[in-house]
């Protein structure tokens, strides 16, 4: 601040002018390197006392920020990091001693020991890799884009060690084996080799080499070091210094050239997102959020809607699968219920059949015993055999009573009749039977009219009958080693609902047609012949009928039930009588 005020006033005197210089290789190195330039300036501008101040990276930044220096000599990386925020005026750029160009001077190289096994940057994953500084332009920053091109994010892939200044440390550490590779400024190796500090042949580059002033380099060259003035320096002094620099020669060659555009470096920094004028990512996001707030809200809303939609679908899927499971369970329960009903029917029928077969002879016994008693009584009312005949009669009656009790115990309660939607019942039932039949190669077809079919009956009983009939048909196919079709149809006819089950499996035997419901007359091996009898009983119990016929090379069983009450319009109810 003081300088800012006194500089114009003291322009004529031998006032001090401070030149800050980035000293990557240490103070001495810097003083030695920039000594000729400083001497030249002192000679050219005797009114000013030029003082060189070697500074590390952070020190230089701080010095510029606080205006503690008037001029700076710095690496190309600093052009932008220091230049733009502090409005530095770039006066001259160092010319490369070999090419004489100010433009192509700086590069970066990834070095490993010549005897190390590494052949590719990727081989260094997880290995210690040395560099000077995360913002060291000549080294680290220049090489990062190269590595990224290869898919390597050095900060993640490598165990980076930032060794700081002096940069000579890089090669020493690499040589010692403290690190497996270093990211070094181009020409450092050659320079140190020339100075006898290291042996160049002990190192090699891991990336394709781009020859740069005879140095190993893995990156395109970036402009060389430059000389800049801080904004507080009077314009006159700036001009004088510029002229002096451009006039400096060494070995007949100009040391400094015109200041070059830092555009190329700007680009690099942009790529690295390190540009000082480039807002940080977080700031960028913040700005974007502010600017596009409605869109962001919309996007968020859509995302939330999407999420809700997804959850909703999940819920539906879950509910659907639960419904399926429940339907499966219901189906199994229905099948069990039917099987149970069938078992009871069979048992009841067996008991009835047995009762009949036993009651007939018991009736005959009783009649004969009683007849005999009557005749004996006419001959001799005190005949000794009379009480015996009475006992025969009593014993027969006792046997009959046992049968009667068993019958009563097994007898089902008369079913409660209700109005059934026959079409729905048939749909459910065929659905239930279809998979099992399909396994036997039998197609089960349902033919229904469009009109409603309200029948009066007993659901379980009717289902039981239908299952019996369908199974009979299926077994008839099986017995003939055939497959085919079973057709279940229904229609409203004359105050009744008529359901037909037909097949093409040969039909009933003449004997069966003559006496359809005689028990113990199965045509099937192992069958009791109870099926049709049970069906007939069940139909009778609901006030219905069952009839057998043969048609089209198969059996046709017709069931009829009284028409039930129906709330829908459609069938005309015809009263009987």
């Amino acid at each position, binding site marked *: 601040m003081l300088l800012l005020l006194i500089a114009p006033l003291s322009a004529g005197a031998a006032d001090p002018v401070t030149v800050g210089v980035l000293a990557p290789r240490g103070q001495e190195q810097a003083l030695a390197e920039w000594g000729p330039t400083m001497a030249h300036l002192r000679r050219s501008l005797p009114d000013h006392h030029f003082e060189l101040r070697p500074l590390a990276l952070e020190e230089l930044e701080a010095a510029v920020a606080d205006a503690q220096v008037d001029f700076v000599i710095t690496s190309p990386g600093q052009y932008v990091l220091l230049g733009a925020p502090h409005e530095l005026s770039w006066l001259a750029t160092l010319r490369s001693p070999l090419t004489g160009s100010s433009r192509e001077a700086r590069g970066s190289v990834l070095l490993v020991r010549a005897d190390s096994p590494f052949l590719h940057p990727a081989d260094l994953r997880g290995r210690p890799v040395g560099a000077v500084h995360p913002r060291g332009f000549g080294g680290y920053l220049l090489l990062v884009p190269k590595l990224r091109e290869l898919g390597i994010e050095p900060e993640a892939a490598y165990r980076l060690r930032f060794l700081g200044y002096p940069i000579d440390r890089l090669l020493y550490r690499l040589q010692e084996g403290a690190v497996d590779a270093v990211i070094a400024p181009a020409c450092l190796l050659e320079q140190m080799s020339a100075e006898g500090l290291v042996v160049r042949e002990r190192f090699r580059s891991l990336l394709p080499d781009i020859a740069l002033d005879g140095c190993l380099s893995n990156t395109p060259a970036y402009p060389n070091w430059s000389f800049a003035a801080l904004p507080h320096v009077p314009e006159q002094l700036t001009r004088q210094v510029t002229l002096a620099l451009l006039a400096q020669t060494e070995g007949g060659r100009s040391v400094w050239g015109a200041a070059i555009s830092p555009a190329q470096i700007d680009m690099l920094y942009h790529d690295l997102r390190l540009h000082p004028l480039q807002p940080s990512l977080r700031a960028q996001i913040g700005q974007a959020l502010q600017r596009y707030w409605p869109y962001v809200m919309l996007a968020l809303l859509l995302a939330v809607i999407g999420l809700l939609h997804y959850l909703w679908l999940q819920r539906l899927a879950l509910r659907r699968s639960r419904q399926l499971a429940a339907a499966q369970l219901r189906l199994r329960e229905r099948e069990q219920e039917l099987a149970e009903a069938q078992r009871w029917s069979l048992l009841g029928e067996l008991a*009835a059949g047995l*009762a*009949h*077969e*036993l*009651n*007939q*002879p*018991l*009736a*005959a*016994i*009783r*009649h*004969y015993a*009683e*007849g005999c008693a*009557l*005749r004996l009584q006419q001959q001799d009312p005190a005949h000794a055999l009379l009480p015996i005949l009475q006992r025969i*009669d009593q014993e*027969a*009656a006792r046997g*009959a009573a046992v049968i*009667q009790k068993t*019958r009563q115990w097994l*007898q089902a309660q*008369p079913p409660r009749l209700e109005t059934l939607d026959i079409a729905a019942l048939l749909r459910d039932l065929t659905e239930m039977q279809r998979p099992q039949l399909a396994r036997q190669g039998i197609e089960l077809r349902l033919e229904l009219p469009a009109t409603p079919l309200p029948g009066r009956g007993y659901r379980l009983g009717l289902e039981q009958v239908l299952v019996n009939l369908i199974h009979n048909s299926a077994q008839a196919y099986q017995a003939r080693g055939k497959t085919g079709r079973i057709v279940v149809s229904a229609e409203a006819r004359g105050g009744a609902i008529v359901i037909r089950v037909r097949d093409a499996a040969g039909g009933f035997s003449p004997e069966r047609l*003559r*006496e359809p419901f*005689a028990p113990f007359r199965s045509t099937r091996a192992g069958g009791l012949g109870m099926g049709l009898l049970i069906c007939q009983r069940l139909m*009778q*119990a609901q006030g219905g009928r069952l009839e057998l016929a043969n048609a089209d090379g198969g059996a046709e069983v017709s069931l009829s039930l009284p028409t039930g009450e129906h709330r829908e319009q459609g069938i005309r109810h015809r009263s009987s009588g």
Partner: protein
Amino acid sequence: MSKESVTVHLVDDDASVREACRFVLEDYGYAVRCWPDGAQFLAGVDPHTLGVVILDLRMPGLYGDAVQARLEELGSTLGVIMLTAHGDVDSAVTAMKQGAVDFLQKPISGRELVVAIDAALERSRKRLAQHRLQRRLARLTQREREIAERVALGATNREIAEQLHVSVRTVEVHRANLMRKLGADSLAELIRIWQQGQAEA
């Protein structure tokens, strides 16, 4: 009425039961006629006679209840007893509705069967009387019917002649004819026959 003059028809497919039943019923003094199935019975029996039919419910071919239904259709005067070795409740209900009074469970004793037969005979007798009455009523002409109806309601010949716009003499002739056709000896009997006939119709 002597038991010998009526026939008990036994319809049962089981020959030994049939024979045993005939054996005991004959001891009780009935004339028994056996039938092996319903169809033969229906073909061979005169349904308009005094008599009783004992039907086995569960028979091959025509079931007992089907035979009974057919008898009802024919207007049979036979008294019906249903016998079953099963004790089917549903069939029992059907049979009762169709007019069979007794529905009996096999094996039944002869004594119980006799009670049922006598009750069935009583029904048969009434039905037969009714049947005969109806047959007699059926013989009347339209004009005789009109006159009989008015006579039964207590109208005099003159009143009837006025109502039907005929002469008293014509009414007297018709009245004599219808009395003869109905077998009525007196006015009181005519009234009784007529009322019975009306009640039945």
